[in-house]
């Protein structure tokens, strides 16, 4: 396709939109280095790295970071297993209620987080389950399953069903077929889905506020810091870390799924 020059006003509008989206992010980064710690003063009176040291020294940050990482890891693992199984069932076989199941699996990501949060909270209360690390994990798994499922189901659809039959025909049982044929064909999709799920879980706030007990994940910790700040720029340092931890997996997922036409589409 030949690209043509867009009209000037369109280019200005596009540029304006991009700036509006990303300049605030840059501000966060800049304020992580400011020497002034009470208010957001522009321009910053001076630059320093001391807030990084200060953040490093704070045990509450380490606790929140570790909790977030553990929650994201376990929620992602649960999502990988359940999402893959569900995608395999929906795309490999026909059964009564298949479309309904497919819709029900996707629903949590369409529902507002606050609805998911409230319903999970009342369900946990009804069942007398104390709020803990595991209730946070379960809350996150509800929407992590969706992204893994979506990635896996798309790949399953593009993987020819006769590959499984061919493998069986050549002597492989179900487990060997999964190990040698299915897994290699859906691996990148699972990795991408897992990375997205991890990133989603890592910066989740709404569902977490309803399903957490006394623990604070990193985003919750940041929210609390904004209300009653102590060393305000430390929050900005943490914000930078969150951006990096969530942005890198999403970038990775993008690159992994981008080139998959040559991986999955080569059967024909």
């Amino acid at each position, binding site marked *: 396709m030949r690209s043509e020059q867009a009209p000037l006003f369109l280019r200005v509008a596009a540029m304006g939109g991009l700036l509006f989206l990303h300049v605030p992010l840059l501000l966060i980064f800049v304020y992580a280095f400011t020497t002034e710690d009470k208010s957001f003063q522009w321009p910053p009176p001076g630059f320093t790295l001391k807030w990084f040291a200060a953040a490093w020294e704070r045990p509450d940050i380490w606790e929140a970071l570790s909790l977030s990482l553990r929650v994201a890891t376990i929620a992602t693992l649960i999502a990988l297993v359940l999402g893959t199984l569900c995608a395999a069932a929906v795309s490999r076989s026909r059964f009564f209620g298949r479309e309904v199941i497919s819709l029900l699996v996707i629903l949590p990501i369409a529902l507002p987080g606050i609805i998911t949060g409230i319903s999970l909270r009342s369900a946990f209360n009804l069942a007398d389950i104390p709020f803990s690390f595991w209730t946070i994990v379960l809350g996150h798994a509800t929407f992590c399953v969706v992204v893994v499922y979506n990635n896996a189901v798309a790949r399953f659809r593009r993987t*020819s069903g006769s*590959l499984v*039959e061919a493998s*069986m*025909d*050549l*002597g492989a049982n179900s487990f060997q077929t999964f190990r040698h044929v299915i897994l290699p064909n859906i691996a990148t999709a699972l990795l991408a889905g897992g990375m997205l799920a991890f990133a989603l879980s890592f910066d989740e706030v709404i569902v977490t506020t309803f399903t957490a007990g006394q623990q604070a994940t990193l985003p919750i910790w940041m929210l609390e810091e904004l209300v009653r700040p102590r060393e305000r720029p430390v929050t900005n340092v943490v914000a930078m870390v969150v951006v990096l931890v969530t942005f890198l997996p999403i970038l990775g997922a993008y690159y992994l799924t981008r080139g998959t036409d040559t991986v*999955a*589409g080569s059967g024909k």
Partner: protein
Amino acid sequence: MTVAVSFSGVTRHFGTVRAVDGVDLDIAEGEFFAMLGPSGSGKTTCLRLIAGFEQPTGGDIRLFGQSVRDVPPYRRAVNTVFQDYALFPHLNVLDNVAYGLMIAGKGKTERYRESEAALDLVALPGYGGRKPSELSGGQRQRVALARALVNKPRVLLLDEPLGALDLKLREQMQEELKSLQRQLCITFVFVTHDQGEALSMADRVAVFNQGRIVQVGSPEDIYYRPEVPFVADFVGSSNILPPILTGLSALAAIRPEALRLTDTGTPATVTAVNFLGAATRVALDANGSRMTALLPKGAVRPTVGASVKVSWDAADLHQMKGGA
């Protein structure tokens, strides 16, 4: 004679559809056997029943005398060449061919040596390092063939093996399949909707229609001596003549090339004339009975609308079973 594959009263229903409806069939060891029929006639389902991808609703299938009722596909001494080849896209050609041997637990050196030999057999030496996506359709077909043959199956199943190839390649592969089969002495069972393919390659042909086998026989039987009108019509468009024209007690089939335009005989009107190069095809209407004559080169070519007389030798007539 050892019976390689045996169907007795096999049915396979999908809901209310009777895909296979009471098939009895014996395929001998070392035979090149064709299952011929239009799409939806049950031939592919029969192949999948032998491979084990489908389970019969009723009846029994035996492989070399053993019932395979509860034997999963991966424990049957048969291998399949799939219609879409089903090569594993994440493996290179050599690993595709070696897949069955790897699953069987053969060492790397041994399975690669045998796979190279199989690639030689299908005339693709040195292609092991390529990915399936880098091959042409004909090459993928050969890889699929090598991948099946390397396991030394007792029966090789081929599902429309030549369907996706262009005409020239198809003719070449027909020859190669035929000579491979002679060389390896393996039972080949192949499914096709192309009657020319079935007649030119197979030792015996089963013609399928609506889930049943309507005739089994040598290509000559099928071609010259169709037992039912469906076979006469499907295999090479025989003319079907009603008793009133032949004086026989049932419908009779006759090949288009056995009809002649002569001075005496059955009156007919010419409805179409097509020049085919080596012959001329003439469509005729004899008082409501449509028939086609294939006139050799040099015969007088009639014009459309002309009144002619058609005749034939009674010996060329083949009386069929049953009614219309």
